[in-house]
């Protein structure tokens, strides 16, 4: 298993290898970050705010004089974990519903699609505000909000792909062979839409990182003293004028994470590319 994965990794183009390395790096930070952090997350350890880098504080200090490196190492797992889980949940739900609609015919497709249209018309921020106001902020709730917000978008794309694929001759052949809808959806249609769906997953992942950051800024996301990468940027926004490391470091972190995910996904062997 590991040998095969290694072999596949070697076959990736350079951009894919860079992406893979970035993704592995961030996964490792998400898993082990809190253990590596030199200071506790909420501790005020520096005398100056927006300090530059130093031996004691590798990435300087933030707007309250806390250690940026420690906050970054502890915050990464909220962004990586929450966004990845929410994006996966959204993509899996959206794609499953889309396949149901595509093989189920108009009687299934119409109500489902109209329901998704309704969902898409609710502004995501307002929707989150209402839910957080009603239930109070918690990680599972944030996960659910992010997932629900991005299901309709994924559904739209997956349904458009699947509806075209269902018309293909090989699906007609499968139907004429007497195959059931489940087999057609899983074995005939799904493998041919996996690559565009992965690209879509990368996009959703980035959107969810941004959504969570926005929620954190409004005070509805991850609650202080914990912070995800987005809220690290937001809380240090006043340091932008001085070019403080406190804002640059989390911004670079978000960029490398999202760019890495997308590089890796784009480099995965898909249809129409040489193997």
């Amino acid at each position, binding site marked *: 298993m590991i040998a095969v994965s290694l072999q596949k990794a070697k076959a990736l183009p350079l951009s894919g290898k860079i992406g893979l390395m970035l993704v592995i790096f961030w996964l490792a930070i998400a898993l082990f970050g809190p253990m590596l952090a030199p200071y506790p997350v909420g501790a005020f350890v520096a005398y100056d705010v927006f300090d530059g880098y130093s031996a004691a504080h590798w990435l300087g200090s933030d707007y309250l004089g806390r250690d940026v490196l420690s906050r970054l190492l502890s915050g990464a797992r909220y962004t990586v974990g929450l966004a990845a889980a929410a994006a996966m949940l959204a993509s899996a739900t959206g794609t499953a519903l889309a396949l149901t609609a595509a093989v189920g015919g108009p009687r299934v497709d119409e109500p489902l699609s109209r329901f998704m249209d309704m969902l898409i018309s609710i502004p995501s921020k307002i929707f989150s505000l209402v839910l957080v106001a009603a239930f109070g902020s918690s990680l599972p709730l944030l996960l659910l909000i992010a997932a629900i917000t991005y299901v309709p978008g994924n559904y739209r794309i997956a349904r458009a792909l699947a509806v075209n694929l269902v018309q293909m001759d*090989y699906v007609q*052949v499968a139907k*004429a*062979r*007497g195959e059931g809808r489940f087999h057609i959806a899983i074995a005939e249609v799904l*493998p*041919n839409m996996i690559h565009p769906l992965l690209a879509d997953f990368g996009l959703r992942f980035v959107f969810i990182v941004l959504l969570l950051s926005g929620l954190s800024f409004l005070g509805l996301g991850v609650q202080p003293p914990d912070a995800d990468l987005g809220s690290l940027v937001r809380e240090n926004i006043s340091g932008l004028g001085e070019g403080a490391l406190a804002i640059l470091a989390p911004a670079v972190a978000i960029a490398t994470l999202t760019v890495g995910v997308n590089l890796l996904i784009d480099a995965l062997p898909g*249809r129409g590319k040489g193997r």
Partner: protein
Amino acid sequence: MTDRPHIEVKDLCVTARNAQGETFPIVSGIDFALKRGEVLALIGESGSGKTTIALTLLGHARPGATIAGGSIRVGDAELTRLDRTALAQLRGNRIAYIAQSAAAAFNPSRTIMDQVVEPALIHDLMPRDKAEAKAVELFRALALPFPDTIGARYPHQLSGGQLQRLMAAMALITDPELIILDEPTTALDVTTQIEVLRAFKAVVLERGATAIYVSHDLAVVAQMADQIVVLNQGRIREAGASAQILHSPADDYTRTLMAAARPAMRPTPARAAVPAAPLLEIRGLTAGYGKIDKAGRPRMPVLRDINLTIERGATLGVIGESGSGKSTIARVIAGLLPPASGQVLLDGEPLPPGLAGRSRDQFRRVQLVFQNADTALNPAHSVQQILERPLAFYHGLKGNAAHLRVMELMDLIRLPATLIDRNIGGLSGGQKQRVNLARALAADPQLILCDEVTSALDTVVGAAILDLMAELRRELGIATMFISHDISTVKAICDDILVLYAGTMVETGPRAAFQTAPFHPYTDLLIGSVPEMRAGWLEESHAGRGPPPIGAAGDHPDLCRFLPRCPARVDGLCNITPPPRHPLAKGNRILCHLGAESLCPS
């Protein structure tokens, strides 16, 4: 200067780059020359480089390819030395190009006239009103209907054959020194092809145009060309005057091409003495799309009143032009389209109309093989996965037993066992079609519905598939419904033939009855439109010459559907009364008013 050839290509070499970045030649060592007013044909299979060569005469190489060496001279212009702007001056002006699919080459959002006069306007050759007058003159010369007003229409309002002729008008509007015709009739039905060829030839002769005709069809080329160049894998195999190539080909490859173009009659096995019940029987079938009214007719009827039987192990050929409903018959039998009325009986038992309600065994006994193996095989699956699925689904074969059976099937379709792990993208067109066939065989069917299985293939590859099918039929005794637009193929391999026109059966009978006249007028047109491999056939053929005048047609729904095109129609009879179905002495039944004596002999 008079004996200097007008167009001269010397030692032409075009190279391309592969995925590893290595350069390799696609065509090399190409030499030919032609005088003003001559037509030269480039003949070859797909991948032979014929279109690549034709494009270099426009000074163009497709993305990824470059003209690496040699010289291309048109008149006084040496194309390899010209820059972009100078080439743009030549293209569409002194050199014109007619593409294979006119339907795709026209812009659907602009009128025909706008597009036809465009080359003349771009190159500032004449004012718009003069160009339009010239276009109308060309429309007339190309025998287009309503030449004065056809320019105001949009491409979707015209047929494929008409668009192809309009492409020719667009090319000719600037009086080019050289016209390049790239498979201009390949996408057309034979009956349309003959009309288009006739129009092309008349215009080429009348204007003394110099032309390069690219085609894979020797018989078509025989009608048009003075010289023929035979290409294979980017090299010239043989070049010479048409008559010499057609009558005494020197090269083996040319001979293979000629043999493949004339399908050999394949012997059909003797039939079982006492057939109990026919394997498949269709009774009074009507099918189509849209809502079904009270009389059992759908809003868009495709098939009307189809009756046919297929005996065990027999082959039934279904022919007709595009849109005649021949593929729909297969879809109805397979259950993909429930019929509006009528019955399909398998082994004497009625099949449920749609997919729902058919038993797995009923599915197994009838297998459908689609025309285009590129789209009929799932690109995400390997050959092994494709062949194993029906084995598991119908026979519950798994693991080693399934693997053994897959190997047997690979052997049966003459593919090396090493291919089983390949994805579909890694196979050639002919190999894909074999896998497509093997998937149907894996089910152990009694009936295979073959929808145009050789149409998308080169003649040589297609002939090999036909041989394979004939062999499988002998060995396995599977009945086949062979759907095709090509009457010579059908005549070569089928026991019985059914001719379909606009969804009605116009003629049915054993194949022996299709060897000699008389035929139904439509069958006659079909047979007469297949080009013969000799010069002068186009002039002698009477096919597609146009019908005699006739009064207004009545409004009976069952009137002869071939009436608007029928050369043998009788005023006062055909346009008033629906035609009867009656037998001819030689064994076939036709749907026509006329008897054997009044049907024109072919």
